[in-house]
């Protein structure tokens, strides 16, 4: 075969051969990203990542209609940037390690594109989580808030993609085809992510409490929450009564008991800890991803962040006593976590009880006393009390709680009221149980259930239609036919706190101090 007779190679073939020999490679990525050293490649990703994540957090705040801090938007952004540096650095480190592990992959362009897409998804994930964590306001602009998120996500994605490419190709002699940056595909991805993240906001606005007609019950219902009581102990307390039990994921008492009170999981009710952080005294945030120390340390030292104790301001779902009260049922609720005053109802906040107590037994005693006062005043059809003495003192049920429960059991046996005892193992475990001293409850076997089932069951027993969007459902199998309201409504709407203040206060600090002295927050 002679040269003259051989067909000339195609242009693509020639390029491919020359690239394999190290030609047609300007080494731009290497020249830029290897100077001054490899770890320097991460810096643009971390900086653009912190910018994008801070923008996402700020946009989430804006989409919820929170007031801008008096100190200015720039300072808010600077504080958020400082906070988000940590997750951005973690993302950069992950990218660095993965890229090192994937050095000279078969399809570096695809790997880099995946890194970029992951970066964009992270930003919108932050936005969606931020939106879900914040209580809804009335003046939010979620679509406008998404614009800066899209822009910063775009640049973060580009930085992550370029970093991935440069790191994976650092020691590869021949570069693949010049990676095409498909602007259209990236914009389409950003659009899809943006629309997806809107689902976090969707339905949170203009959802109002429905009009419901309720046929009042004649027999009052008392719900007693016993924290720190194992399901077995509860069974001994009320042997033979119909009961249910469940296992839950580990969590602090405010989270666990808010789940029981609302019928939805923590991601929806929003109560997850004993405390939150405030920024500039106007915005309350839950520190994201192990960044609590930034709020408690540097930002607090700088006077930018404060500490807020758990309160009803952060709960985004209605508790069962709030739904009952809105349906016109006389209600009293004493000592529940994340509760707040309610017009037309007797609600005694957890903070008020804790302020007077020095031990779990005293907490129980004060709570019982306050419930008795409330019952004398308003003769509620629904009463709810939370007794955490056993969990605080770790000595079993306190004397006050035991006496109270026994007295109420006598009333229940006499048919004067329905008594539902809800127990949670507290810090000793992650199980819960409930017994129903109720004339309409049947059966003696303990049935499996979920903590989220209790709120809708309480409401259905009061004749209130349970909401379909709750994660739990009425325990129909445990009650006689007709004992539970069978009608359903789509949802109860969004709970907006009446007291959305986010300012650190002396009373708040005292409450946190009291919680600490009672054995929480350790």
């Amino acid at each position, binding site marked *: 075969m002679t*040269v003259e007779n051989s067909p*000339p190679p195609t*242009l693509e073939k*020639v390029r491919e051969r020359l690239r394999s*020999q190290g030609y047609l*490679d*300007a080494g731009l990525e290497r*020249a830029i990203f290897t*100077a001054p050293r490899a770890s320097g490649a991460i810096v643009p990703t971390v900086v653009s990542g912190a910018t994008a994540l801070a923008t996402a957090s700020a946009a989430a705040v804006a989409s919820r209609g929170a007031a801008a801090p008096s100190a200015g938007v720039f300072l808010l952004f600077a504080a958020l940037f400082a906070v988000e540096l940590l997750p951005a650095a973690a993302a950069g480190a992950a990218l660095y390690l993965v890229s090192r592990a994937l050095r000279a992959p078969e399809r570096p362009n695809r790997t880099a594109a995946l890194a970029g897409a992951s970066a964009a998804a992270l930003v919108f994930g932050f936005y969606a989580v931020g939106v879900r964590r914040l209580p809804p306001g009335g003046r939010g602009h979620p679509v406008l808030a998404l614009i800066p998120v899209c822009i910063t996500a775009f640049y973060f994605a580009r930085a992550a993609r370029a970093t991935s490419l440069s790191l994976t190709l650092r020691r590869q002699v021949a570069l693949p085809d010049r990676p095409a940056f498909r602007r259209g595909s990236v914009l389409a991805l950003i659009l899809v992510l943006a629309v997806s993240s809107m689902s976090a906001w969707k339905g949170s606005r203009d959802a109002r409490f429905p009009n419901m007609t309720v046929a009042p019950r004649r027999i009052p219902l008392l719900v007693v929450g016993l924290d720190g009581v194992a399901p077995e102990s509860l069974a001994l307390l009320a042997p033979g009564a119909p009961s249910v039990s469940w296992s839950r994921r580990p969590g602090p008492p405010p989270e666990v008991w808010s789940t029981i009170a609302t019928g939805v999981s923590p991601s929806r009710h929003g109560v997850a800890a004993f405390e939150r952080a405030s920024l500039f005294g106007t915005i309350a945030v839950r520190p994201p991803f192990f960044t609590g120390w930034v709020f408690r340390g540097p930002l607090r030292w700088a006077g930018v962040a404060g500490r807020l104790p758990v309160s009803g301001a952060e709960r985004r779902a209605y508790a069962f006593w709030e739904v009952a009260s809105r349906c016109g049922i006389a209600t009293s609720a004493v000592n529940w976590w994340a509760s707040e005053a309610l017009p037309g109802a007797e609600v005694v906040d957890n903070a008020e009880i804790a302020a007077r107590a020095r031990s779990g037994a005293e907490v129980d005693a004060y709570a019982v006393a306050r419930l008795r006062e409330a019952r004398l005043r308003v003769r509620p059809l629904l009463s709810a009390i939370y007794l955490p003495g056993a969990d605080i003192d770790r000595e079993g049920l306190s004397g006050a709680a035991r006496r109270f429960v026994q007295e109420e059991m006598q009333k229940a046996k006499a048919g004067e009221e329905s008594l539902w005892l809800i127990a949670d193992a507290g810090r000793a475990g992650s199980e819960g149980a409930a017994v129903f001293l109720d004339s309409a409850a049947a059966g003696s076997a303990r049935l499996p259930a979920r903590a989220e089932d209790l709120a809708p069951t309480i409401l259905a027993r009061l004749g209130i239609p349970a909401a379909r969007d709750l994660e739990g459902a009425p325990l129909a199998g445990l009650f006689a036919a007709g004992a539970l309201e069978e009608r359903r409504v789509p949802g109860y709407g969004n709970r907006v706190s009446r007291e959305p203040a986010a300012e650190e206060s002396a009373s708040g600090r005292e409450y946190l101090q009291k919680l600490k002295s009672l054995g929480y927050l350790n």
Partner: protein
Amino acid sequence: MRGALLSSGKRIRALVAVASGLLFRGPEEPLLDLGVAIEAVHAASLVFDDLPSMDDGSVRRGAPAIHRQFGESTAILAAISLINRAFEILASGPGLPPRIRSRLVAELARASGEKGCCRGQEADLSSDPLRAGLDELERIHALKTGELFVAAARGGAIAARASEEEIEAMTRYAKNLGLAFQIVDDLLEVEGDQARTGKKAQGEGHRANFAKILGADIARTIAEELTEASAAAVSPLGRRAGPLADLAYALRDRRS
């Protein structure tokens, strides 16, 4: 020696060496020494290349080949002397510390010896011009021509005490530039005339070259792309790299 070194020529390799060094603010005199040394080695390689035992060339740079002018034995001795003179200049020139000088000597020795020009010349002589393909031609070029381009660019950067990353960027510049230069040379050889190129036109000649193997259109496109890659390789180094990029474009557009 004078006839070989001072005949008309473009002095591209010397230009690359000096421009590379000036890019990194290297001292001028040692850079000129480096350029002279590299041109001396290149001139010696041309003398050897034209010998009857090798390519048996009769015309070089528009004039009769050295062995045609002064006889074969004189040509061989002149070429050897040029190489020795080059290393003498590098090893003893003022203005550079011994560590840098020894590194420059090593660079030039590698490019001109068994891992560079000599190996390339041997591969060229043993190849079958009618059967040589792209890979073989590229290998011959890389050793015979490319290595000296790379040594010039790297040498300039080394003399200016550039960082390893910067030296690496210069290597990529010279590697792409060297092949682009060779392809354009081959295109001119096929299409041009002896008066302009100073070489015998080889449109019907005996040697395989890129223009013949790839076809003129593809060869031209590849030369363009190599030039772009060459210029891009030094673009991160900023405005001071402008002369090197201009040199790459000028070589692409040359007519002789």
